[in-house]
């Protein structure tokens, strides 16, 4: 998996892109963060960029952490951009958009309130597609070492000699 930093300015990016939920589709084959500070982009080979953008929004709606940037959700679902997985994902996202149209939106990512997107996902949560995405996120998102510090989790400690001298008993509020 690669998370590529793009070299474009925000203006260049805006000029080439269409808004898709939390992220931009920029030209052919790229999805990027929409915020000025979100200096990230991923290349998609097998999925339509719009599909990847929708998948990223869906990932955030399943496991929403407001302090976790889109790039981590993008990395969590990047693995579906493979020749093997792409057809099933395109089909699943098409069904998600179809369901969105059923409640009056042109696409899933155009549903403005998280509450409404989540209601839609609830109606689909027994589908194999939803469970595939949700199940994959459990490791795809939470097993990213770069995500751990956001939650305060410190990971490996052996190389630092454990916590015997680094606060295993430092609680001070009891």
């Amino acid at each position, binding site marked *: 998996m690669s998370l590529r930093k793009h070299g474009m300015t925000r203006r260049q990016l805006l000029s080439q892109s269409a808004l898709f939920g939390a992220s931009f589709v920029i030209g052919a084959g790229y999805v990027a963060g929409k915020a000025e500070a979100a200096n990230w982009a991923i290349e998609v080979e097998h999925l339509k960029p719009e599909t990847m953008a929708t998948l990223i929004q869906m990932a955030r709606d399943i496991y929403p952490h407001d302090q976790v940037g889109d790039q981590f959700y993008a990395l969590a679902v990047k693995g579906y951009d493979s020749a093997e997985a792409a057809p099933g994902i395109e089909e699943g996202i098409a069904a998600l958009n179809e369901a969105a149209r059923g409640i009056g939106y042109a696409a899933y990512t155009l549903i403005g309130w998280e509450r409404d997107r989540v209601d839609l996902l609830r109606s689909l949560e027994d589908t194999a597609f939803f469970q595939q995405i949700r199940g994959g996120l459990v490791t795809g998102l939470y097993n990213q070492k770069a995500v751990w510090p956001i939650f305060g989790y410190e990971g490996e400690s052996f190389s630092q000699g*454990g916590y015997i001298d680094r606060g295993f008993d430092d609680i001070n*509020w009891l």
Partner: protein
Amino acid sequence: MTAPFDLNDDSVVVIIGTGAGGGVLANELAQKGISVVALEAGGRYLPEDYINDEWDSFGQLAWTDARSTSGDWRVARDFSGLPAWIVKAVGGTTTHWAGASLRFQDHEWKPRTTYGDVEGANLIDWPIDPREMDDYYTKAETKLGVTRTGGRPGLPGSNNYKVFEKGAKALGYEEVHTGRMAINAVDNDDRLACQQTGFCFQGCKWGAKWSSAYTDIPRGEATGNLEVRERCHVMRIEHNQAGKVTGVVYVDADGTRHEQKARVVCVAGNSIESPRLLLNSASSMFPDGLANSSGQVGRNYMRHVTGSVYATFEQPVRMWRGTTMAGIIQDEARHDPARGFVGGYELETLSLGLPFMAAFLDPGAWGREFTTALDHYENMAGMWIVGEDMPQETNRITLNSDVTDQHGLPVANVHFDDHPNDVAMRAHAYQQGIAIYEAVGATRVFPTPPYPSTHNLGTNRMSEKPRDGVVNAHGQSHDIANLFVSDGSQFTSGAAENPTLTIVALAIRQADFIAAEMGRQAL
């Protein structure tokens, strides 16, 4: 003869599995001068190989061969192919265990007598008097270097323990301490003191926690009387026309089959694989599997009444720092039917890293109710419930011929339904666990469902009468004198305590018995 031993050497004791039961038995017999071939399905990993990373370690150590599940337990829904979280490696699940080393209470050896006739439970008493176990427990505690026994000091209290202790004291609990742990508080028996690293479940990189992988196994090998063949999966046990076992057929890492002859065979593959092997060894003489004239092989599967309580607080706890199991409350371990159930339970602190917390806090859950819990992971404390569950004949390991493993053998299906006593006990334990944390100011509590089983017990149980169980008081099968069971599957009941110390004590005791029986040519 000294190791390595010839495949045709029929003087050896073959032990299948090298964990708390098999690994200890192998060393104890080797120390007595008895030739032992130990066949271990997994590879050999030592402290330098262990990984401080939950999923990477799981990939390295866990038994992930195919299994199936059924029954009303939630594990069958959430982790249908992973009924148990146990290890495939030299040392077995002693690499993964938390280290809690508790003796049974006297009454727990006699559950049928103590609890009476519990509807739906297949209770019998152990054919062992608790006084027979005293010396063996002492030997086991010495071997494992158990803290707070034999004059050894306790471990210091971690953050997670301090939260737990304060809540426990607020509720009036009195038996609250940092546990009797097979984790060195000070350097002991050529092993280092605990460095409070966490990752006890992933194999102790300091060797501070006892595991047969780096204690009993190499010590047995050093005698020249023990040969461990790793990555060798036993497929079946062979017998002769006289009904005595004669050896085992196994497949090695290259996929080549061998037959190792044996004078005695000891099965110690844990409570799922051991009955599976006996059932897969069915023959025309023993059509229902070996040692199964009672029909009890695979039945009475127990996994302890478990569950966890996590809670979040206003300020950080950082429960992952330090030993994974850092303390215990024993007040509820007593038998007191006034609580609405028989038997008792222990409460023990527990922590999971963020990756496993995401997987196990509420499997399948999603959305903000779930993610806001993880948002406060740093402020979370946790404990685990371990209590006595009722043996039920219908909770059992069977062969699932619809699914085969990489060797073409039918896999084990693990069926489990909670007994009403289990449900009542878990509800009580959740209530107490929640009260403990609320007494310390918890802002939110999480009564978390049981994980895939680490305490797998009872599927080849001990019984006084051959019709009630599979093995006698020494783990010797009722049907076949030179076939033994040497792991937790011989447990007649589960008791409230973590089982490893009792498995080790029984293995030491069984070694004495086998040596004596061999000495008088009875085997």
